[in-house]
C-alpha cells in the first residue's frame, strides 16, 4: 500500500489534455472566470495545507462531536435564557444572517469544484463545499431548539426567504459573492476578503465576546466553523497570485470592490452586536478596535503579500469606521419594527464609553439618542407606547449595497444620485457608486425596496409593509425594555 506522501500528490493533480473538446469549452471564461489562461498556467497551483478525504472526514467528525458535547453541557434552553437579553438579540442577528449565507458558500465552492482551473483547487473547493454545508447545518440545528421559546429565532431559516429590507441587502450581497459568481472572483472575494478578513470579526472577535457574555455554545459553534474557514480560505491566495501576475488591474479591482462590499455588511452584523448588544462590562474592545486589529492589519498584510495598493477610498473607509454602524443602529432603533430582533437604547454610561471610543463624531450621534430619549420621556414607557417611538416614513436605500442611506455623518450624508441610461440611481457613498459604474449591467436591473414600493410591487402603507417584510406583532423588533429605563425616567438623565 502506498504511503500518504506517495499517493496524495498524484491524487491531487489529475488534470489531463482534452482530445474530443477544447479547454475553453470545458472551462468557459464566463463561469471559470477572468483571466482565462490555459491549464498549463495553473499547473503549479498549490494549497499550503494538504488533506485527503479520509483525513477530512475524521477531522470534521471530531469537531462535530466537540460541538455536540458543548451543546449537551451548556446548550440547553435555560442556558440561553440566562444570557443578557441584549446579547440574545445579537444572537438573533447572527442566527438569521449566518446559516443560509453559508449554504450559498456551498454553491460557490461547488462552482470552484467544477470550474476551478486546477485539479488540486477543485479538490479543495469540494472540501470547502462540505465545510459550508456543515456551517449551514450546525447553526440551524442549534437555533432550532430556541424557536419554541422565542419565535424570532425562526428567522434562522426564514430570513433569506423574506422580502425584509435587510434580507434584500444580504441576498444582493451573497447572490453576487457566491451564488452567481465565476470561480475566480468567488475564490478571491470569498477566501481572500471575506474569510481571511471579515469573518475574523465573527469567528474571533465575536467569539471572544461570547465567552465574556457566558454564551459558550455560540463561542464553540463559531470557533469550530473558523477552523474550517482557515483551511478552505487558502484556496483564494494562489488564485489571486496568478490573477495578479496576468491582470493586476483586475486583481486590484476585485480587492477594492469586495473589501467595500464586505465592510458595509459586516459593520452592521458585527458592529451593532459588539458596541450595542453586548453588555459594556463584557466588551473587551470596541468594534473599531477589533477592525483595526483583525481586519485592517490583516488586509495590509494581504496587500503587501500580493503587491496590491490600498483601495482608493481608504480615507472614506477610515471615516466610516467612526460612523457607519452608529448611523445604522440609531436609525434601525427607530425602525425596529421592520426587523426580527429587539433593540436596546445605549445608557448614559454606554454613551460615555462610545464617546471615548468614537470621539470624532459622537456629538452628532449623541444628539440623536438624546432626541429619542426625549420622545420616550414624553410618551412614557410601556409596550402600548412603542408605536409612538417609531419612524413611519419609508427609509431610502442604496442601490448598490441595498442598505439604508446612512453613510457619512449626520451633518454630511454622502448619498448621491447618478443618472444612468435614462434612469436615476441613488448610492449611499462614492465607493458604492464606483462599484455600480464598473459593472452597471450587473446591477442596474435589481429592484430595491423603494422601486418596489413606487411600482406597486410592495405596499406604501407602513403597517402593510411590515407584513411584506414577513413580520408580525409577535416577531417584529421592539425595545427590549419598552422604554422603561431607570436612567431615562429619572429625568434629565438622557445626557451622559
Amino acid at each position, binding site marked *: 500500500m502506498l504511503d500518504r506522501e506517495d499517493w496524495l500528490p498524484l491524487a491531487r493533480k489529475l488534470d489531463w489534455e482534452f482530445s474530443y473538446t477544447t479547454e475553453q469549452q470545458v472551462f468557459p471564461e464566463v463561469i471559470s472566470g477572468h483571466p482565462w489562461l490555459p491549464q498549463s498556467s495553473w499547473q503549479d497551483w498549490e494549497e499550503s495545507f494538504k488533506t485527503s478525504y479520509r483525513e477530512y472526514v475524521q477531522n470534521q467528525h471530531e469537531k462535530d462531536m466537540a460541538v455536540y458535547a458543548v451543546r449537551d453541557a451548556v446548550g440547553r434552553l435555560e442556558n440561553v435564557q440566562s444570557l443578557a437579553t441584549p446579547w440574545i438579540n445579537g444572537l438573533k442577528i447572527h442566527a438569521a444572517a449566518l446559516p443560509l449565507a453559508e449554504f450559498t458558500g456551498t454553491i460557490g465552492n461547488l462552482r470552484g469544484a467544477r470550474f476551478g482551473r486546477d485539479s488540486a483547487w477543485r479538490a479543495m473547493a469540494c472540501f470547502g463545499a462540505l465545510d459550508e454545508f456543515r456551517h449551514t447545518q450546525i447553526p440551524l440545528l442549534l437555533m432550532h431548539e430556541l424557536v419554541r421559546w422565542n419565535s424570532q429565532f425562526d428567522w434562522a431559516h426564514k430570513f433569506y426567504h423574506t422580502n425584509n429590507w435587510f434580507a434584500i441587502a444580504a441576498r444582493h450581497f451573497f447572490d453576487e459573492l457566491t451564488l452567481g459568481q465565476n470561480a475566480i472572483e468567488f475564490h478571491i472575494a470569498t477566501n481572500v476578503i471575506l474569510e481571511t478578513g471579515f469573518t475574523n470579526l465573527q469567528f474571533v472577535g465575536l467569539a471572544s465576546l461570547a465567552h465574556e457574555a457566558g454564551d459558550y455554545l455560540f463561542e464553540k459553534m463559531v470557533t469550530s466553523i473558523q477552523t474550517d474557514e482557515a483551511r478552505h480560505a487558502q484556496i483564494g491566495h494562489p488564485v489571486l497570485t496568478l490573477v495578479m501576475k496576468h491582470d493586476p488591474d483586475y486583481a486590484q479591482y476585485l480587492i477594492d470592490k469586495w473589501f467595500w462590499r464586505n465592510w458595509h455588511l459586516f459593520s452592521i452584523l458585527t458592529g451593532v452586536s459588539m458596541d450595542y448588544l453586548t453588555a459594556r462590562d463584557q466588551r473587551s474592545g470596541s468594534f473599531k478596535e477589533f477592525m483595526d486589529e483583525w481586519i485592517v492589519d490583516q488586509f495590509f498584510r494581504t496587500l503587501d503579500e500580493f503587491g496590491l495598493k490600498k483601495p482608493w477610498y481608504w480615507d472614506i473607509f477610515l471615516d466610516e469606521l467612526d460612523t457607519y454602524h*452608529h*448611523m*445604522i443602529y*440609531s*436609525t434601525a432603533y*427607530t425602525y425596529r419594527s421592520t426587523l426580527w430582533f429587539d433593540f436596546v437604547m445605549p445608557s448614559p454610561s454606554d454613551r460615555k464609553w462610545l464617546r471615548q471610543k468614537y470621539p470624532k463624531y459622537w456629538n*452628532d*450621534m449623541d*444628539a*440623536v439618542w438624546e*432626541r*429619542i430619549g426625549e*420622545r420616550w420621556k414624553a410618551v412614557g414607557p410601556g409596550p402600548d407606547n412603542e408605536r409612538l*417611538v*417609531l*419612524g*413611519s*416614513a*419609508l*427609509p*431610502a436605500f442604496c442601490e448598490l449595497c441595498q442598505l*439604508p*442611506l*446612512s453613510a457619512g455623518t*449626520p*451633518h454630511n*450624508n454622502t*448619498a*448621491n*444620485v447618478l443618472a444612468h441610461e435614462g434612469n*436615476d440611481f*441613488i448610492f449611499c457613498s462614492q465607493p458604492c457608486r464606483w462599484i455600480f459604474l464598473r459593472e452597471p449591467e450587473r446591477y442596474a436591473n435589481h429592484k430595491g425596496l*423603494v422601486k418596489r*414600493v*413606487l411600482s406597486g410591487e410592495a405596499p406604501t402603507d407602513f403597517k402593510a409593509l411590515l407584513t411584506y417584510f414577513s413580520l408580525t406583532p409577535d416577531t417584529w423588533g421592539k425595545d427590549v425594555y419598552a422604554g422603561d429605563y431607570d436612567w431615562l425616567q429619572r429625568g434629565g438623565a438622557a445626557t451622559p
Partner: protein
Amino acid sequence: MPLPLYGFMEGDTIGLLIVADEQESVRSLAGKLRDAAGLRVDGSCHTDVVYRGIVLDPDSTLAQADFKPLQRFDLRRNHGLSESRYSR
C-alpha cells in the same frame, strides 16, 4: 403629480423617501421631512431647503423649483441668513 424624492435632514442618520406633489410648496416639503425625521432630529431650526446646491424660496412650488423624481434634497439649519438669498 406625485413626486418621490429623497430627503436628508441635517443631523439625521438616514435619508427618507418623501412623496410630494409638483404643486406643493417648498415650505410644505420641508414640513414633511421635518415630521418624518422628527423622532431623531429637532427640526425647529431647519428652514433651508437645498436642491442641487441652491437654497430655495419656501414659497415656490416644487414645479417652479424644477424638482425631478428620485432626486436628493436637503433640509439645512438656517444659520441666520435672510430670505433675500432666494431667487424665483
